[in-house]
């Protein structure tokens, strides 16, 4: 069951914290909602991409002449259609990007660096002709040795992806290239001294596999470029201003030339924060003079769009017997895929973030290999590091005979804790989630045979960033709200609720849309759990601007000074000594006089949202293990997390449940499987095994509310933290069920059975 912890008296809010129907609900249950592939433009062509069959090869030549001669083929593009870009890292939300690499990822230049790497693209009058045209493109490859595994890629003598890659962050700089793009380090205090105080030290190594975001909607877009160079792009994305920026840069066009409309988006989880098809579709549209529609197949999604990193990890924690952690040390090696830029830095920052520690050191390596370039995936980097740390925490608790919740409580980060990565936390809710876990019936319920219970905590930063929102008071008193962060999971409902709360009106009077790039100032993307936080903050500001203007207009009508009127309960009325002198005017009344008192009334907020606050979670997992086949089922699960304040609790619960389900998949069955030939063997939902409905139990949630003082409604981002604890919570549960510690993901049946048999042979297994 869903429950909500609320010690506070009855909510002071009319809308915030309630569960109204979402404004886009009917469109989404009737099939009206238009997603990336649902748009058609008159005369559109079908665009298809030719992809590398090799994991690593030099491109000697590309001959497109035969394809161009095929009737129905209207354009072909290759590396020659995209200008090279200088090497320069720029921030792109939670990840850094380098346009030198982006242009190469969109279309291979000197080399193909992974199987599925785009080499050329065609636009043709039908899918069948486009497919035939791809077969007519002759690419001459010099096949090179490849490297898939991160540890092998770090070895001297490993095949080099980029002969010019010198490890950054190492002094002095290495004089030879390698596949190690970067070393990062975060440290606090002195771990050597810390470990000397330790009475218990546990050190373990772990591995995780790359996992895909697994959004059900493949990448899709439709592009049109007119004869005067003005371009329209319809695309499924987490950030259409980002798409505009990348496309303008790669094509050498003015930003103002491209108008990007975000379609409804069928899941992203970080994977739709980068460009793949979009610049290609625009280039094909420009060349052909016709609109071009491009949709990836599921196989292309798996082979060519970003999963998150697989990793090798080592974690060492020292504690005193009273449970105080005195030193924590970690080494993280993350696969970046074909180009630098794994989320090892945020991973290193997250690793020990839940704990108030004096001596910490985390070193991370960003390593390239012949796999698709990783993209952000829900708390990028965090779940990988936390999977390792939270298991070692569990071992420490076992070693000193302490309850694992108590161990975490003893060391929990709180207001004033200085994190190893720099900042001091404001009010945070980790302790509250741990106490809620201890108080939860789940924590005390007896287990059945072959079952085990585990807990783990998790952390994610959350971000703010550039945001613009506009709000217009319509002539009948209703309002139109336009935001610029694509709505993936109920954002429009939350924005309407905050606007209605501010305006003191019924939520039904506000209609919200996601505007295109021509309608608002720059909006950073929906990611980093920022949309409800940032667009909410901007919505509140825009609403307050509308209120201010409404007051101004009434004051003008009543011939009162502006500060002699106030806005209460959805109406403007005279205040102070003038109270009662005029009949209060509702927003509808104000809308009626807008024309003659100065014209349309609107609010426009353009902010860089500061004050994003982290969200902590504690999860409890129960598993059952089949001793004969090694199959693990999650039989009960409770996710407890600090939301700051839940604007729409149903969608907050939904974020918790969705993060947990993805975490269960990551823990048990999801992985990229490569053959010796460097080719991905499971590029489909048949063998890339995301959880199905019958795999999961109900996922119980507890929303803890420790408001973020820097948001008008106390909001913290909630979307990413829920994927951080599940892998460790499940591994801890499996360990408690079997007596065997599982350090390699996924905990798939063959691996579990092999480990159980090995432990049984030594008498070390419980089942």
């Amino acid at each position, binding site marked *: 069951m869903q429950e909500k912890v609320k010690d506070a008296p009855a909510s002071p809010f009319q809308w915030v914290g309630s569960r109204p129907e979402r404004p886009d609900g009917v469109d989404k249950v009737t099939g009206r909602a238009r997603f990336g592939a649902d748009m058609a433009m008159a005369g559109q062509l079908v665009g298809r991409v030719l992809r590398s069959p090799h994991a690593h090869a030099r491109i000697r030549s590309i001959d497109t002449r035969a394809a161009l001669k095929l009737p129905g083929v209207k354009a072909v593009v290759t590396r020659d259609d995209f200008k090279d870009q200088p090497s320069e890292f720029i921030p792109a939300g939670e990840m850094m990007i380098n346009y030198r690499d982006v242009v190469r990822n969109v279309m291979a230049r000197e080399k193909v660096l992974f199987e599925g790497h785009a080499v050329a693209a065609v636009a043709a009058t039908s899918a*069948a002709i486009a497919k*035939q045209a791809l077969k007519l493109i002759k690419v001459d490859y010099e096949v090179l040795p490849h490297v898939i595994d991160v540890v092998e890629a770090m070895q001297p003598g490993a095949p080099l992806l980029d002969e010019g890659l010198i490890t950054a962050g190492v002094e002095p700089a290495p004089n030879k290239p390698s596949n190690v793009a970067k070393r990062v380090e975060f440290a606090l205090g002195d771990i050597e001294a810390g470990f000397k105080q330790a009475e218990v030290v546990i050190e373990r190594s772990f591995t995780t596999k790359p996992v895909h975001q697994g959004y059900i909607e493949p990448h899709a877009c439709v592009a049109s470029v007119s004869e005067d160079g003005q371009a329209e792009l319809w695309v499924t994305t987490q950030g259409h201003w980002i798409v505009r920026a990348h496309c303008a840069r790669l094509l050498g066009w003015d930003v103002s030339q491209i108008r990007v409309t975000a379609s409804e988006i069928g899941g992203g989880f970080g994977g739709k924060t980068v460009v793949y098809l979009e610049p290609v579709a625009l280039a094909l549209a420009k060349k052909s003079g016709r609109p071009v529609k491009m949709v990836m197949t599921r*196989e292309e999604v798996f082979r060519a769009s970003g999963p998150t990193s697989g990793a090798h990890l080592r974690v060492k924690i020292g504690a005193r017997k009273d449970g105080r952690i005195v030193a924590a040390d970690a080494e993280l090696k993350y696969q970046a895929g074909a180009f630098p830029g794994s989320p090892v830095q945020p991973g290193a920052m997250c690793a020990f973030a839940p704990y108030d520690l004096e001596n910490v050191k985390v070193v991370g390596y960003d390593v390239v290999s012949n796999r698709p370039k990783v993209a952000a995936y829900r708390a990028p980097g965090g779940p990988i590091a936390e999977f390792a740390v939270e298991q070692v925490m569990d071992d420490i608790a076992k070693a000193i005979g302490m309850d694992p919740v108590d161990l975490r409580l003893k060391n929990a980060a709180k207001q004033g804790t200085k994190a190893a990565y720099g900042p001091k936390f404001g009010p945070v809710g980790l302790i509250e989630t741990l106490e809620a876990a201890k108080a939860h019936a789940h924590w005390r319920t007896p287990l059945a045979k072959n079952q085990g219970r585990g807990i783990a905590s998790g952390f994610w930063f959350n971000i703010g960033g550039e945001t613009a929102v506009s709000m217009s008071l319509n002539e009948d008193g209703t309002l139109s709200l336009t935001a610029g962060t694509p709505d993936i999971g109920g954002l429009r409902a939350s924005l309407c609720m905050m606007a209605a709360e501010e305006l003191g009106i019924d939520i039904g009077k506000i209609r919200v849309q996601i505007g295109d790039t021509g309608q608002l100032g720059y909006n950073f993307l929906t990611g980093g759990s920022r949309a409800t936080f940032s667009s909410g903050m901007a919505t509140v500001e825009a609403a307050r601007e509308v209120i201010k203007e409404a007051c101004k207009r009434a004051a003008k009508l009543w011939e009162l000074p502006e500060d002699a009127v106030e806005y209460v309960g959805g109406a403007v009325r005279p205040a102070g000594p003038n109270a009662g002198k005029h009949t209060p005017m509702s927003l509808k009344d104000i809308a009626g006089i807008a024309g003659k008192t100065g014209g349309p009334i609107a609010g426009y907020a353009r902010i860089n949202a500061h004050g994003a606050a982290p969200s902590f979670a504690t999860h409890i997992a129960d598993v059952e293990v089949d001793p*004969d*086949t*090694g*199959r693990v089922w999650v039989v009960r699960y409770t996710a407890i997390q600090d939301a700051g304040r839940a604007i729409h609790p149903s969608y907050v619960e939904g974020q918790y449940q969705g993060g947990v389900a993805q975490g269960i998949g990551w823990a*048990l*069955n999801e992985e990229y*499987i490569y053959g010796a030939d460097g080719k991905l*063997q*499971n590029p489909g*939902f*048949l*063998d890339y*095994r995301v*959880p*199905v409905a*019958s*795999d999961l139990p109900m996922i119980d949630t507890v929303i803890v509310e420790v408001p973020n003082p820097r948001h008008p409604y106390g909001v913290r981002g909630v979307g990413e933290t829920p994927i951080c604890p599940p892998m460790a919570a499940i591994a801890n549960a499996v360990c408690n069920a079997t007596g065997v510690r599982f350090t390699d993901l996924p905990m*798939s*049946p*063959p691996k579990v*059975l*092999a480990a159980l*048999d090995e432990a049984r042979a030594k008498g070390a297994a419980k089942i």
Partner: protein
Amino acid sequence: MDMRYEAPKSLDQAVALLVAEKGEARVLAGGTDLLVQMRTDVVEPALLVDIKGIAELREIKDEAGGFRVGAAVTGAELKEHPKLKAMWPGVVEAANLIGSTQVQGRATMGGNLCNGSPAADSVPALIAASAKACIVGPQGRREVAVEEVMLAPRKLSLAKGELIASFLLPARPPRAGDAYLRFIPRTEMDIAVVGCGVCLTLDAKDVCTAARVSLGAVAERPLLVAAAAAALVGSTVDAAALDKLDAAARAACRPIDDKRGTKDYRIKVAGVLARRATQIALERARKA
């Protein structure tokens, strides 16, 4: 590039179309494997012969105390036939493990067998049940034990122009029961890592008088494991018999390592599934 599509109304027409085609001809039943293979260019047929318009291929008929099941009957239709389900629950359950509810609405046992996968779920269950395939071709009709149809991955013992028209499920002996289990990492939607079909018959004293054990996904084709059956016959299916069965099942495996499982894992799990399926079949036989 152009693919022809024909939907004959009779078996004779279907055979004639298959015989006449010079390029690659494919029989289209439920299409749940074939369409995927066409989409990914694994097969590029010149001709599709849709057999769903042929009445006898779409029927379940009583025959010789058992049932004749048309090769193009879907999994969902099998499940909705109470008498068939009561007589051969293992076969119906096996056919209903193939894919999702949606796939059940299309997928057929004929297609499952002719797809030529060693991991086909319905095949070990049909083999355990002593089912025969009725093969029709230019030379007429022949009945063949199901275990003789598939030779190796994607390779069948059918000649050009031949197709499977139906399966004959015999009358189930008194005090007999069948069962099929497969192992997959998830609860649904996967291809079997190992599959095991069992059918056994008891006498009045609960002694096993006959048994058939078939394993899927542990060799190049579904296996009929005589040694595993022999482990049960003459016993009361007690712990000792189950141990022998487990060992015989494992000994019969000659699997490969692939993305779905290791050799070692498949061998171990084959023994486990043989035990578990036998216990279900035993329960059913006792109640029959």
